[in-house]
């Protein structure tokens, strides 16, 4: 039993193993399944794979419940998506999301429709019927008129249209693929299959049946945790008792390893050799970066050993590459492939033959899978940080605030404000600002769970959301045993659960929510406009220059200086640009920053006290139904009127527009923090970086008080080697991930984003050593190099060839709170929404 591995050499080892022991069988198991998509592709093309989606090619994207910026079908689509959303081009893609929970993809959509899971099926069949002309029966939905307009738009987009579905139902995927085929969509390529997912739900269930009927003699699990993640895990455990030999190959003594007879510690992927083929004809190689820390052996070596082979996996893999992979490309050598890390065979897409499918049957069975019910409907989802729970022992991911809810260390039931009001459920802030909430008892088909409720704008009325991946109980540190396990609800690998009832119970839950205010209160903290205005109007209309009145008359802020300006003409001067159109809010940069800069993890209790240490946060704002203009119309004026107005402004819309704005130290050229430090611990560098000398800081925290962006963090405790903070800095292996080039800060000092000065200095040094000019490649910060959608661009503004020049001179450029006059070295690019005009 293995997870998706998509490794050609591992497949080869397993094939050899099966050859030697013909009764052996490999069962692929993905905790959160994508089998529906695989089965659909298999039904249409006879190959268990996924189509290659290229969102850059799409002009109209319609996603029905697919969180393609999250981990839909293995993820990795944000780059193409962001490319298509660059408004510089004549056209910018339009993204319509029809979904239940407010997902990352939904938060980025231009138009978002909140529907129940049962309506998603009908919506897809409706689109199928209109676009292909092959009318199928579907139940009416709450958005029927909009669906007609969407279908029209898709038809207009033609081969630049794309429809996807987030369901794990084979028939739903067939419907979506058929629509794309009818559109002749360029964004879906079936000629280059993708192999990142292998999980086979039927085979897993068959295995459990076979185990229970005593047909299985030995079970070897590798890197899977079915006891934790199977909805019918009790059946699995019962079946295990009838299996005479059970072996768990795992890095940790997790839930599954606990109940198996033999535990063989397997290796971390950094200790392993490996290869992969994610896309047909595109191979990659992995070599170990460290010698095994413990007395362990990698899975493939185990198999080879058990086959009685003297070969180790490295030589096996080399042989496999020589014989089967390198030979396919002229001049390809092992050393070159290993050096490059990738090997691309320039294969032309091969169009597979399309099998006939009975579409009436497909539509019928699609409607059958999920029936509308009287009770509430629940959608299970995965958080951007925690995923399926495999990495629950990683404190970075636990502490990562969810991009949407901005809440860490937990999972919870998300509920619409309307529903909560009806049920008398509330969320409230306690005196130190921390968020508390009511608890409910959730019942569905024999499963009862007590959960906290988080009131979530954008959640469809009549539905609930709950994240998988929490509630681990074995193989993780005590501090990482957070939340509740939602897998018992994930029956039949269906993330939509019908007929859920909830009842309020006694007690309150403490959340670790890092954001207290959720709307911008009609201020332009984040600049945004629509594509129509951007295209047709003058820059001054949608991104006006910020000016202030002075004794000399009105002057642009950029021309006003109270102090003498720093000379930044000599040598490099660094700037960072963040394109809010490309930023999807995925939070990869937050974790990258955490890792690069030895940012401590502080735990739930401290996060509740707003003492989280993230150097880089992603602010998320919802739109509100109230604004000053509307207040005027409604006659809300005077003291009571405006108080009423401000109260209403604080409330997010039921289905809000969402913006993400990553905020780190803005490296102001006129930094308010620098002028108030009594010991000159924070000072300005000639390269544009606001520097922080930790060993000089005495911890007055004046700087944090004077920072308009609130990006400075104070070390309230010593977070390393402290039993009270039992995260990665409290044990020897955890400390191995610390960056040796960055100081570990001690208790009582301030810290903040350094613009990765350790990287810029190392880059400058390598340029000096080579005797050449500094290049962009030398100096990419942790956030800019981790950004999957290239929203973050870092470069030297004194270098004409640097990529930073484009955003620096872009009309969309704005500075955060520019009127304060801090003259930051971090700039933002206005967010553009492609609204239907």
């Amino acid at each position: 039993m293995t997870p998706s591995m998509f490794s050609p050499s591992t497949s080869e080892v397993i094939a050899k193993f099966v050859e030697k022991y013909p009764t052996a069988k490999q069962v692929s198991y993905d905790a959160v399944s994508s089998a529906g998509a695989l089965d659909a592709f298999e039904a249409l093309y006879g190959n268990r794979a996924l189509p290659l989606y290229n969102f850059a090619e799409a002009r109209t994207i319609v996603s029905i419940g697919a969180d393609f910026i999250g981990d839909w079908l293995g993820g990795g689509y944000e780059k193409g998506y962001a490319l298509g959303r660059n408004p510089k081009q004549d056209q910018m893609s339009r993204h319509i999301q029809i979904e239940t929970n407010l997902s990352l993809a939904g938060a980025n959509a231009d138009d978002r429709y909140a529907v129940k899971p049962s309506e998603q099926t009908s919506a897809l069949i409706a689109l199928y019927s209109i676009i292909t002309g092959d009318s199928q029966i579907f139940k009416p939905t709450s958005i029927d008129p909009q669906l007609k307009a969407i279908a029209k738009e898709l038809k207009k987009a033609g081969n630049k249209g794309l429809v996807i579905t987030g369901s794990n139902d084979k028939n739903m995927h067939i419907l979506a693929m058929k629509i794309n085929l009818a559109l002749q969509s360029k964004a879906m390529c079936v000629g280059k299959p993708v192999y990142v997912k292998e999980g086979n739900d039927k085979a897993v269930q068959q295995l459990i049946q076979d185990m229970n009927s005593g047909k299985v003699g030995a079970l070897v699990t590798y890197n899977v945790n079915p006891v934790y993640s199977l909805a019918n895990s009790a059946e699995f455990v019962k079946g295990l008792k009838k299996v005479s030999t059970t072996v768990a190959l795992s890095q940790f003594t997790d839930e599954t390893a606990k109940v198996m007879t033999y535990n063989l510690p397997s290796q971390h992927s950094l200790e392993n050799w490996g290869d992969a083929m994610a896309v047909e004809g595109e191979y990659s190689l992995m070599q170990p970066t460290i010698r095994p820390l413990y007395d362990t052996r990698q899975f493939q070596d185990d198999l080879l050993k058990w086959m009685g082979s003297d070969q180790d996996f490295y030589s096996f893999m080399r042989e496999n590459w020589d014989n089967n992979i390198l030979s396919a490309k002229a001049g390809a050598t092992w050393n070159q492939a290993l050096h490059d890390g990738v090997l691309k065979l320039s294969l032309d897409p091969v169009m597979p033959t399309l099998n006939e499918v009975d579409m009436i049957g497909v539509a019928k069975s699609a409607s059958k899978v999920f029936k509308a019910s009287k009770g509430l409907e629940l959608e299970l989802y995965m958080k951007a940080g925690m995923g399926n729970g495999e990495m629950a022992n990683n404190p970075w991911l636990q502490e990562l605030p969810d991009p949407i809810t901005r809440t860490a260390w937990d999972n919870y039931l998300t509920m619409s404000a309307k529903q909560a009001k009806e049920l008398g459920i509330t969320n409230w802030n306690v005196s130190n600002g921390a968020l508390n909430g009511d608890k409910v008892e959730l019942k569905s088909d024999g499963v009862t769970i007590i959960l906290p409720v988080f009131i979530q704008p954008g959640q469809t009325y009549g539905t609930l959301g709950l994240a998988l991946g929490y509630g681990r109980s074995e193989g993780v540190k005590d501090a990482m045993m957070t939340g509740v396990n939602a897998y018992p609800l994930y029956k039949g690998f269906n993330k939509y659960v019908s007929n859920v009832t909830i009842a309020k119970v006694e007690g309150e839950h403490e959340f670790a929510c890092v954001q207290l205010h959720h709307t911008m209160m009609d201020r332009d903290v984040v600049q945004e406009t629509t594509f129509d205005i951007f295209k047709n109007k003058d820059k001054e209309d949608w991104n006006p220059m910020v000016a202030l009145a002075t004794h000399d008359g009105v002057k642009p802020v950029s021309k006003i200086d109270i102090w003498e300006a720093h000379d930044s003409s000599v040598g490099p001067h660094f700037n960072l640009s963040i394109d809010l159109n490309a930023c999807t809010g995925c939070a990869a940069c937050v974790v990258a920053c955490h890792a690069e800069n030895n940012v401590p993890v502080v735990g739930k209790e401290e996060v509740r006290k707003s003492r989280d240490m993230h150097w880089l946060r992603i602010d998320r704002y919802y739109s509100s139904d109230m604004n000053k203009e509307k207040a005027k119309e409604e006659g809300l004026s005077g003291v009571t009127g405006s108080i009423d107005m401000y109260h209403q402004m604080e409330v997010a819309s039921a289905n809000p527009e969402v913006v993400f704005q990553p905020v780190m130290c803005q490296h102001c050229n006129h930094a308010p923090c620098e002028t108030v430090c009594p010991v000159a611990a924070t000072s300005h560098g000639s390269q544009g970086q606001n520097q922080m000398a930790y060993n000089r800081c005495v911890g007055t925290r004046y700087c944090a008080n004077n920072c308009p962006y609130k990006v400075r963090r104070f070390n309230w405790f010593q977070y390393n080697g402290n039993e009270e903070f039992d995260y990665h800095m409290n044990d020897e292996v955890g400390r191995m991930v610390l960056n040796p080039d960055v100081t570990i800060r001690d208790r009582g000092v301030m810290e903040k984003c350094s613009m990765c000065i350790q990287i810029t200095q190392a880059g400058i040094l390598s340029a000096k050593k080579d005797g050449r000019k500094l290049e962009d490649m030398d100096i990419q910060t942790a956030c800019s190099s981790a950004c999957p959608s290239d929203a973050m661009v870092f470069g030297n503004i004194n270098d004409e060839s640097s990529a930073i020049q484009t955003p620096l001179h872009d009309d969309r450029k704005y500075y955060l709170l520019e009127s304060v006059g801090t003259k930051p070295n971090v700039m933002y690019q206005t967010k553009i929404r492609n609204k239907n005009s």
Partner: protein
Amino acid sequence: MKELNNRYNSLRVHFVFSVAFSFLFSLSIFAQDGDINNGKKLFNTNCAACHKLEQRLIGPPLKGVAAKRNQEWLNKWIRNSAELIASGDADAKAIFEEYSNIPMTPFPNLSDQDIADIMAYTDADPALFQKKKAEVVVVEVKPIQTYYTEVIIAVIIIVLLLTMVLFKLKSTLNNLNREEQKGYFDELKAYLAYLVKDNAILITFVLVISLGGLYAFWEWGVGVGVDKGYQPIQPIAFSHKVHAGDQEIDCEYCHSSARTSKTSGIPSANVCMNCHKLIQEGETTGKKEIAKIYDAIGFDPATSTYKKDYVQKPIKWVRVHNLPDFVYYNHSQHVTVGQQECQTCHGPVEEMEELYQYSPLTMEWCVDCHRTEEVKMAGNDYYKEIHEQLSKKYGTEKLTVAMMGGLECGKCHY
């Protein structure tokens, strides 16, 4: 012959005499037509890389080889062994196979006389050439004794004695004057009371004590964490003087990563073995210290082979130079880009028998150099533009690190 260092000067004189003396004997005893001195020279330049006299190295031990083989065979073998093997000579073949089929480097340049000289040397009594085992002079390192306390006590005693003498003198004089007599301590008390009464004296006294105290506190404070002169005992009595000084081995031969990385690196034992595979005995400590490398890496000097499946042990060198964690220092920045000599910071390492910390490694010390040292920009394209701009800005061609922003806190502290 390599010059011995001064410490063994007397031994050297003995040695030279004894060698010279033995030569007389050896020449008379072994009436061979080879010149042993020349033979030794030739042996060391041509043969010593693969042969030892008494021990097997890459090739067989050569002691008494002239007695085993005849001169003609030897000449052929030495000039071109491959030819001899090819000719089917049984002895040649046997030797070739015995020594793992490694062919011997041919020496066609050696004349018959040269070979005879070498043979003479190999036949000579090795005792003649063995140095008298250098006695290891154990120098007892005594802690530098400070006599402050003793001196102070002595001074106090002297002062007390003096006052008593003066008092005695005064009382005698008083007696002569028939004045009223006071006891010694009464007098002292009165004097102290007078001192306390006089504010100027009191203030001066307090000021001197407190300023002195402050100064002492300052001196102590700035010395915290400054380990200049730190000289730990190392697991192997490795002498930088012998290696870097006498043998003139380049620093970066062993500390090669100084050129490319943050740290200068402690050479791994295999770097030691580059030389010590052959040099199995040193002049100061004999085999004792070198054996520690062999023990760590698993090398058998008797057969000159590495032991199979040996569990290697680390040599636990004690770090001498250690900067605090909050400062970033990069060797390659200074060695490769700044073209600094190692000695600039590490001092005369080539004269250090045991390594010690030469510089204080304080920030003041770093900054002093950054203020004065000219950046070597010539020929480095990175600086091309920067040099031009900075020269214009400061009006000088001589640009220091400080002018480039090298004194900004964040350049070293992050």
